């Protein structure tokens, strides 16, 4: 089977196309997703091939986009909606947490909500405010929603298809900084790993680094740098934030005895807090040091000229790794 080198943007685009070919109930909706192909061009060319009834340019109303998707799902469709940027999901927050997340529960399982809400998330692109946020914890904290984050082109291709085929609502986070960054080899004939699983992306023995979305790349760079200093870091790409797939994490931490979590979102009450609590509960006797978190400060996202001082970078993660060796 032939393989090709693709970016994350291309992987997502190909994945969406495949999902639309496989199931004619799949609809795309959002601001500018049609003719323009989305502001990041993720839906490029899809309206041309699938028509305006399946790739729908919506009015500029996020609650409207998500709320009408609920109705379409009730009618048997599988809507995939695009929120243009992370910071603009909040007008739809009520529909997401009160309607999308609860319909199945309220109907005692009689109604399914196979909706995918795609959100380009995270910073590092030099944007103005509201274009660089990491709202994942708000959704992972909501029962009834599943939350996943892809980190590379191949996962982008498979995970978007799996999310669309899944019968529950999925918040699908795409690290926008990575859209057009690195290319990877895609083999379309391969069998993908299941959607709600985390994965060891670099084996190691001295400490475990947990990351997802944009920080996976940072964590991998750390591992490379640490190796030159004679330290072996294991990096796990969580991929799924709700539900969490903790088995590979526990296995790893029991072996390494040390754990550092890194994400772009604020540290306070973020995913790192949850991960640290779980690792502590399950791996208490194997831990040589407390689980440390490296994330954003508990401040609003700063002006982009200083975002590099805000986002967890190679040095801050390495510093945390070093600290776990001082206990």
């Amino acid at each position: 089977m032939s393989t090709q080198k693709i970016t994350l943007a291309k992987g997502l685009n190909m994945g969406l196309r495949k999902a639309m070919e496989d199931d004619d109930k799949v609809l795309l909706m959002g601001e500018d997703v049609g003719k323009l192909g989305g502001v990041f061009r993720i839906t490029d060319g899809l309206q041309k091939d699938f028509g305006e009834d399946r790739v729908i340019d919506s009015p500029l109303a996020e609650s409207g986009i998500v709320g009408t998707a609920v109705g379409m799902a009730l009618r048997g469709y599988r809507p995939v909606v695009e929120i243009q940027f992370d910071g603009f999901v909040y007008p739809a927050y009520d529909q997401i947490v009160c309607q999308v997340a609860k319909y199945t529960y309220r109907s005692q399982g009689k109604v399914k909500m196979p909706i995918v809400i795609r959100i380009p998330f995270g910073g590092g692109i030099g944007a103005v405010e509201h274009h660089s946020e990491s709202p994942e914890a708000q959704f992972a904290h909501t029962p009834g929603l599943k939350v996943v984050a892809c980190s590379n082109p191949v996962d982008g291709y498979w995970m978007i298809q799996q999310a669309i085929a899944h019968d529950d609502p999925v918040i699908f986070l795409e690290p926008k900084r990575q859209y057009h960054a690195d290319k990877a080899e895609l083999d379309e004939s391969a069998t993908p790993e299941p959607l709600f699983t985390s994965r060891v992306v670099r084996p190691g023995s001295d400490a475990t680094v947990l990351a997802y979305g944009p920080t996976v790349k940072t964590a991998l760079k750390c591992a490379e740098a640490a190796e030159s200093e004679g330290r072996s870091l294991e990096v796990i790409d969580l991929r799924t934030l709700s539900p969490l797939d903790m088995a590979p994490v526990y296995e790893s931490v029991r072996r390494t005895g040390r754990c550092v979590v890194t994400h772009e979102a604020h540290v306070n009450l973020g995913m790192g807090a949850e991960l640290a609590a779980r690792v502590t509960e399950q791996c208490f006797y194997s831990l040589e040091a407390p689980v440390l978190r490296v994330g954003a400060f508990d401040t609003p996202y700063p002006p982009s000229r200083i975002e590099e001082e805000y986002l967890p970078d190679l040095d801050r993660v390495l510093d945390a790794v070093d600290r776990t060796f001082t206990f």
Partner: protein
Amino acid sequence: MPDPVSFGPDLADVFGPSQTDGGPDLVQLLTPEGERVHHPEFDHDFSAEELRGLYRDMVLTRRIDVEATALQRHGELGIWAQLLGQEAAQIGAGRALRPQDYVFPTYREHGVAYCKGVDPLRLLGLFRGVDQGGWDPNENNFGLYTIVIGAQTLHATGYAMGMQRDGVVGTGDPDRDSAVIAHFGDGASSQGDVNEAFIFAASYNAPVVFFCQNNQWAISEPIERQTRIPLYQRALGFGFPGIRVDGNDVLATYAVTKAALQRAREGNGPSFVEAYTYRMGAHTTTDDPTRYRLNDELEHWKLKDPIERLKVYLRRNGLVDQEFFDDLDAEAKELGHHLREGCKALPDPKPLDQFGYVFSEMTDEIAAQRDEFAAYLASFEGSHS
């Protein structure tokens, strides 16, 4: 000093103070005195059978409401959202629906639910706290009650857009052509979701009827706090027709809703029906309307009672006899009995039921929490309390 720029007359001058008679555009087919009047656009020939049916529906709907209110007073329901006075608005709209039409209700559409064939007993579960909507929305094409006000208007619009894509709009086949109706209140008309729903529906020409029961109050807030123009006139600003109908006149509500639904089914897009009515009861059983509204107002609206006016009309025209009323009385008693006995017999959910249906399939995480809780509960078994 130059004169200030004029944008035209002040709206309050144009529309005057709030009207209690609904104003000159109110569509009416039956006056509060029970006189049949005619309307150039929305007239309808009602057979005696139809008229008796509408009367029966309103009486039974009031009975559901009265029984549920009493059940709340007896502690059987935690709360109840009463509809006293809104029977005509709901039965008129409910009877205008075809089986293939889909309803997106608020929390007060007991009469519409009844028209859609939902067992009234099923409505009590939410208010008793044993479930969050005990009916299958797809069985009766009657959605779950929605508590967040206005949210369902978007669901309705999305559902209507789905109907368009399914090719069940404007086919010319009356058994196939379908529409959606979205119910909401005058207070809800201020919500962003409702306004977004208007925009989506207009933009895609979706087959949806927005049906607002303007019962004059949103808990304690009067209609004047929601709008400075008559609500139905808002529709024009969104690009579709708005009609104000006498919501205490079941004939007019039926005729207007039927026309609006037909328009939607034929592919001519959304419309807005403002059913001008009055909430004679409290907002819910926890509310105390004496704190914010005058008794005079209630007395005024009592004279417009939707059931009384049809009763007068039926009697005066010899369309009913005593046997009809006796039978209906017996039927209402039977319904009351069904609700009273049924309510008390509604099973409480089991402690472990709360873990079910968070997702379409159980996840390992939730299963683990359920099992842990089950073990915890089991640890009490056999211990003496």
